[in-house]
């Protein structure tokens, strides 16, 4: 394969760490108010990856952004005033919600949680105007983004691909989701994380090649999602703190594995996908 990694970037928040400040990477400070945690993570990881590739923004029309984004995050504190304004006699009241409750929502709430917003903020701040993917929500979907990015590079549709995964998992809605599946995830095992790879054609990247993609495969076993949750297993023996082998990194897992020095990555996901890739150093 003629696909090379020329840059890598990651962010993994430590337990209790609320977010990471992306301000130094923003082209316009006023956009900060629109950003949620997943946007902060994505922008910082992408900016680090682009810098490590020796590229500079704006990346232009021939740079694509191919992301997988974790489950939609909602902070309970954002919804509490809405709910409080929507209750009459202990019951939810549509009229109270319409007249009072919904108007208590932060006006920028939607901007801060929508899963397509990380790609927006990455494109804005790095000036990428090429094609894109916003896949959802697990680590297997990152492999779809990777597959399509490689295809676009190989046919010459683009010159640079930012392939990334991001997940904001420490919030009540995602924690609720992770806790309700079979094989549930303990909140302490989930991290808010982003990882981004800069991919280019190896033949174009020359001495900037950091890794080469040797192989990639994705298999799928259709399953009944209403009656089973496939087990999740990952060959990602991270040893350095704060990560551990059982850590739930959402779709950021592959880029972070590569950042951590691993050259083979295999994950069996809760949505029935078995994804594997191997990478080599020049």
């Amino acid at each position, binding site marked *: 394969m003629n696909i090379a990694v020329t840059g890598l970037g990651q962010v993994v928040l430590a337990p209790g760490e609320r977010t990471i400040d992306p301000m130094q990477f923003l082209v316009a400070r006023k956009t900060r108010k629109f950003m949620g945690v997943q946007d902060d993570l994505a922008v910082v990881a992408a900016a680090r990856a682009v810098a490590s590739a020796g590229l500079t923004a704006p990346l232009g029309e021939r740079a694509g952004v191919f992301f997988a984004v974790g489950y939609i995050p909602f902070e309970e504190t954002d919804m509490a005033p809405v709910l409080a304004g929507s209750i009459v006699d202990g019951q939810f009241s549509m009229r109270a*919600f319409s007249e009072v409750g919904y108007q208590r929502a932060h*006006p920028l709430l939607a901007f801060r949680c929508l899963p397509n917003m990380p790609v927006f903020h990455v494109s804005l701040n790095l000036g990428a105007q090429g094609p*894109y993917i916003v*896949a959802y929500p697990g680590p297997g979907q990152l492999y779809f983004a990777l597959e399509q990015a490689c295809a676009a590079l190989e046919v010459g549709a683009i010159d640079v691909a930012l392939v990334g995964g991001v997940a904001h998992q420490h919030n009540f809605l995602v924690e609720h989701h992770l806790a*309700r599946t079979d094989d549930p995830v303990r909140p302490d095992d989930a991290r808010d994380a982003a990882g981004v790879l800069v991919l280019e054609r190896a033949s174009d990247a020359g001495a900037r090649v950091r890794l080469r993609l040797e192989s990639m495969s994705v298999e799928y076993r259709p399953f009944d999602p*209403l009656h089973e949750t496939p087990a999740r297993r990952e060959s990602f023996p991270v040893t350095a703190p704060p990560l551990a082998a059982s850590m739930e990194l959402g779709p950021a897992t592959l880029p972070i594995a590569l950042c951590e020095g691993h050259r083979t990555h295999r994950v069996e996901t809760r949505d029935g996908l078995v994804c594997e890739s191997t990478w080599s150093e020049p």
Partner: protein
Amino acid sequence: MRARVVITGMGVVSPLGNEVGTFVDALLAGRSGIRPITHFDASALPTRIAGESEIEPALLESSLGDRKIAFARYAAARAMEDAGARPRGKGSVVMGVGLELFAMEHLLRLRAPGFTMPVSLADRLSFLQTPSDLAVHLLSREHGLTAPPTCLVSACAAGTDALGHAFRLVATGRRDWALSGGSDSMINPLGAAGFAALSATSTRNDEPTRASRPFDRRRDGFVMGEGAGVLVLERLDDALARGARIHAEIVGYGSSLDAHGISEPHPEGRGAHLAMKRALDDAGVDTVDCINAHGTSTPKNDPVESLAIERLLGERARHVPVCATKSMIGHLISAAGAVEAIASIGCMQQGMVHPTINLDEPDPACRLDYVPHVARAHAHDTVLSASYGFGGHNAAIVLRRWPHAR
């Protein structure tokens, strides 16, 4: 070497009916599917109208009560029936699916003392919110698609993106076939209130059928719709070999990022132009015979989209009919691109362009031929269908009539 990809099955759930022929006939008749909201009591919200779709109660119940999942299952089943025998080889489900929005009543229960999680997995998954990606796994299992499925969430561009990516997968031989499209329903308290809070939706509540008015000077926002469009994509050679009825060929896909504003398009339509240009280049053509516009009826979209089309087609722009399906069914969000692709194919097959209704007085900044009020006979071989999403996601596909005349 790229294989030719054709569409051999189509299924739709729309505010104008759940059968493709009925849906297209209603569009050609210029009927509106916009009505007062009945799903919940919207009487105190600023926007109280929408394009609601019907779905069988039993199917809704077996879909965890999640409308977008039920819509996807219904449209996929119809598309597979329409395709006849299942295409050969390994296929993927590639769908744009709307977001989970949680039920406020469930949030109240979750916070109540003594709350315990429901016992069965299905009950747990339907409590508070149902994961959107369930849809692609259900469709994979129900229709025997064994290649990896994908759930795309690029907002209003997701349906067109799904078709575009499915097209690429099949054309390059990485999948043998695909079941692709989009499904969405945001006609619920949080969805309706959320859009109202952004002042994005029309408040022309007293005239529901006249509320969605793309390119009209008096437009005041979009109207929510709900539904699904699902299409079967396979290689031309495979379709011919199995004697499948071919509806149309998909010949190009392009996408772009605006990299501009979070809630408004680039003022010169840079991203929209790039996506359409890339779709034409991908198709190997420099023009098309018709355009199914994104046409949301919002103050910001319509003039910028018109400008982008002018940039794309130059002198020819005013001679290419441009229609807006959303004038009749509202904005189906993640399903919009797929449903509008079906509309485009259905009209192209009949040599017609459906009207843009409610276009009484064009915005002076909208200077194209929008086919106002009444359908028009227009034999055409190619149509471009475009979708532009919140956050600057732009996507376009080019479809060609089958069999085509030129």
